[in-house]
């Protein structure tokens, strides 16, 4: 299973390139995020969060299926990142996936943006 990972720097003025307050990690979710596949996603996101990543964008463009295990991972990573004054947002959520998020009101806990550029703008204001 492959994940795609981008780094976007939100400011042109760089004091320290390793200062992760300046780096936004964009993780592209895989097409299925259920109990069997979610362990790898959890390992990846936890390693990034423990390694000093503060701002994370989950790109859900290719996501077709998510269950409670996948949602639990998003919530757990959000808790870790908010503990270090970071944040996690989601982009490109399809309407079918958004229908799953609505009953548990996940969009109140994790912000959803329509494009990556908009979420970068959000992090720039942080």
């Amino acid at each position, binding site marked *: *299973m*492959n*994940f*795609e*990972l*981008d*780094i*976007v*720097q*939100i*400011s*042109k003025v760089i004091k320290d*390139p*390793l200062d*992760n307050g300046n*780096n936004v*990690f964009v993780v592209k979710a895989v097409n299925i995020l259920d109990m069997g596949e979610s*362990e*790898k996603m*959890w*390992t*990846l996101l*936890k*390693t*990034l*969060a*423990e*390694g*000093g*990543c503060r701002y994370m964008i989950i790109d859900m463009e290719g996501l077709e299926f998510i269950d409670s295990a996948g949602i*639990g991972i998003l919530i*757990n990573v959000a808790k870790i990142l908010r503990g270090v004054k970071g944040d996690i947002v989601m982009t490109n959520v399809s309407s079918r996936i958004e229908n799953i998020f609505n009953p548990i009101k996940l969009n109140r806990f994790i912000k959803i943006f329509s494009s990556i*550029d908009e979420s*970068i*703008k959000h992090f*720039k204001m942080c």
Partner: protein
Amino acid sequence: MLLLQPRVKLERRWAVLIMITAVEMMMPEGVKEGEIDFDDVICTVTPEKKLSIDLAQGFWIILKTFVDGGCRKLLVNMENVSFLDSAGIGTLINIMKLIRHRGGDLALTGVAQDLIQILDMVNFRKFIKVFDTVDQAVKFFSDMQLK
């Protein structure tokens, strides 16, 4: 007349540095949620197209985040890389130093033939293992015991 500039172009200026890598986690045994046993995790990073001076910094940030997060078995798959310069080689050597200091190891796989000539020029293969296939590298990592 009102002339609207395409907004994407303006916003792209923030994206000074973009680095795309495919990351694959391989785990021989299942990992429970919560604590992760990094003895079982082999992290494969696949850089795109080239490892040159403008992308080496992003590559360094990604790999350093992985090592800081606890990853100890790092495999760099070079099958998509066709261009490598001194900054790229320096990044690989620096990350090797960092990961060996913490008791893990770094290996390369899928290196193209013309890149091997460059690597041999700096005696690279004497201190970093280069494997032909991913399977050989996975076998090397699964036999390795973390200190």
